[in-house]
């Protein structure tokens, strides 16, 4: 009897070991995929931590009102700057060119907000005291809703921005005589 018993135990253990090995392989595969996609910059979270004083952003530095919206740098790259505050985004409508790599730089003036562009995987947190950076490319012209995705107190449900994607030529012609542009009314 004990012999049969022991044999059963050996079989049970072997099956169990095999399953454990399969489980480990699944996990190694998943982590490997994450590493691969990360190294190839499919979507990398921002690498450096940037800080900013939320009490003075309206007065000085990168996020003063006149510097918000879309701009083209000396190297031709497009940067979009935005600020979240209870209960709106400034500017409330972002104008961006299609088929062009852009960098979104955003922060919060008061509490924690979130910036999500529907229909894309642009999605980041705006934490007061820190600057969020995200790179993106819009493939087609069109309009997207941009809700605040993080609870920011009563009024959170009213915090909806917009993103308007236009053809690159149109974007550049609208920008021609201005330093910064947005589609805010």
């Amino acid at each position, binding site marked *: 009897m004990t012999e049969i018993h022991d044999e059963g*135990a050996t079989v049970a253990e072997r099956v169990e070991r095999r399953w454990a090995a399969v489980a480990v392989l699944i*996990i190694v595969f*998943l982590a490997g995929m994450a590493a691969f996609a990360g190294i190839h910059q499919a979507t990398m979270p921002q690498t450096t*931590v940037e800080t900013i004083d939320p009490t003075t952003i309206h007065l000085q530095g990168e996020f003063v009102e006149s510097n918000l919206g879309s701009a083209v740098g000396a190297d031709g790259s497009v940067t979009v700057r935005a600020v979240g505050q*209870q209960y709106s985004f400034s500017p409330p409508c972002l104008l961006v060119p299609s088929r062009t790599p852009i960098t979104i730089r955003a922060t919060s003036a008061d509490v924690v907000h979130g910036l999500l562009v529907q229909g894309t995987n642009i*999605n980041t947190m705006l934490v007061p005291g820190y600057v969020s950076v995200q790179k993106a490319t819009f493939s087609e012209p069109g309009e997207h809703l941009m809700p605040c995705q993080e609870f*920011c107190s*009563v009024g959170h*449900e009213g915090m909806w921005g917009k993103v308007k994607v236009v053809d690159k030529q149109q974007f550049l012609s609208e920008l021609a005589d201005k330093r910064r542009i947005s589609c805010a009314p």
Partner: protein
Amino acid sequence: MLHNRRLILAHFWLAFAVFAAALLLGAWQMYVRSPLSPWISNPEWYYRSLTAHGTVMGYVFPTLVAMAFGYAISETSLKQNLVGLRWAWAGFWLIAVGAVVAMIPVALGLASVLYTFYPPLIGSPFYYIGVVMVVLGSWIWVALMSINLRIWKKENPGTPVPLPMFANVAGSYLWAWTAVGAALELLLQIIPVALGFKSTIDAGLARVFFSWTLHAIVYFWLMPTYIAYYTIVPRAIGGRIYSDTMARISFILFLVVAMPIGIHHAFADPQVGAGFKFLHSVFTALVALPTLLTVFTICASVEIAARARGGRGAFGWMGALPWRNPMMLAVTFSFVMLGFGGAGGLINMSYQLDTTIHNTQWITGHFHLIFGGAIVIMYFAIAYDLWPHLTGRPIASLGLVRLQLWLWFVGMIVTTFPWHYVGILGMPRRMSFFDYTDPALANEAVSVVLSAIGGVILAASGILFIFILISTQFSQPRQIEDYRFALAVHPPTRVPVALNSYGLWIALMIGLTVTNYGYPILQLAARDDTSVPAVYVGER
């Protein structure tokens, strides 16, 4: 033999009473944010309700269930009377009073900060103090579980610790350590500001502290469920535990790797660099391991029961399972929901895929499927299993029990599947209402209505659950046999020290937490330029 029935019943009843109240709030929330309700009159009520729902469901309810089950396990598996009964009652009252202290400011609208706090939003200090009291009460339980096991070990040298108690104490240590993150956030950061000693706070650092708690707390919620999988289900359906060793390994893995992974909740945050995010992503993948092992072991244990009942063939044995047995139903539903929820979890843990669904309704769908679904349905099963032994009365109607479990399962699927869908469309979570007249949102309306219907089904199931417990409590007493746990196919006669004690694993748990959190926390704590003014909630 259960001696301290009053203690255990008090914990269970308080747990299920607050659960029922929070469940009704949840159903109400789904109704008012759906197109079925013409327009919400005051969004503030929604956020009060959401804060209460989250606080009760996240902190009070699972903690009380784990404590009640833990006391029952300690008595029945060690066959030893509970030591520290007075302390246990003190812990219970700390939680009961703490819950009231926390909920009064929430009801008054002075603490609508949701259960994850969101500094620099700052609510009434009483809310946070109430939460701290709940945690302190539960830490008494942690100490009692440890002490009771120690006493038993002294009297039974060399004997393997019974599996239920081994898992129970692992769960209590997991909780003690994971609660430290939120405790540091509350005591060092939030409460001084709430009391007015300080007016600024580092929101980024607070989010890192909270992430320390935020994921492992889920594994604390999950512990009673997994203990039930391993040590109740096989007995209830006439089977055996396939492997006692694998069960121990699973619980140890939870203890060690559930902790250092919380930064995956901050993948989209600007205050943590990419390196630590990747590290936490990998560790999060690792925590799938104990679940994969458990799924195998439990399916194998169930198969043993089926074959013992005459089941044959590669898959034919499934038909021989006791499908009318409530425990069989509960574990099946739980596994189905764990499967869907776990697949969603693997998507959340990948820091590439996470950006698509971060903070959308998908996340709400995911954790309701895991916690509200896979975990809570086993809490029901635990209650049904223990109730006859706690009250001396058999469950009044097994038909009603089956109906209740079915309603919960269907309700949870109907609620969460549409949430996953609108989440992919980019619907943000934690919003009191949506403007469904906007053409871009109009196509989400149907899904939200479906979820609200799911909420009604869940509320009905919850009420039925309470009804079954009460009616059992008032039925005819009968002789109930002693409570026992499932046996392993090969019961352990000797277990290696490593699988019979926690020292090594606690050291690993703390060591890994320090390596995975130490640098991000120190880096942020050392900076003096990241504190921002507090924003107080409600009238002051």
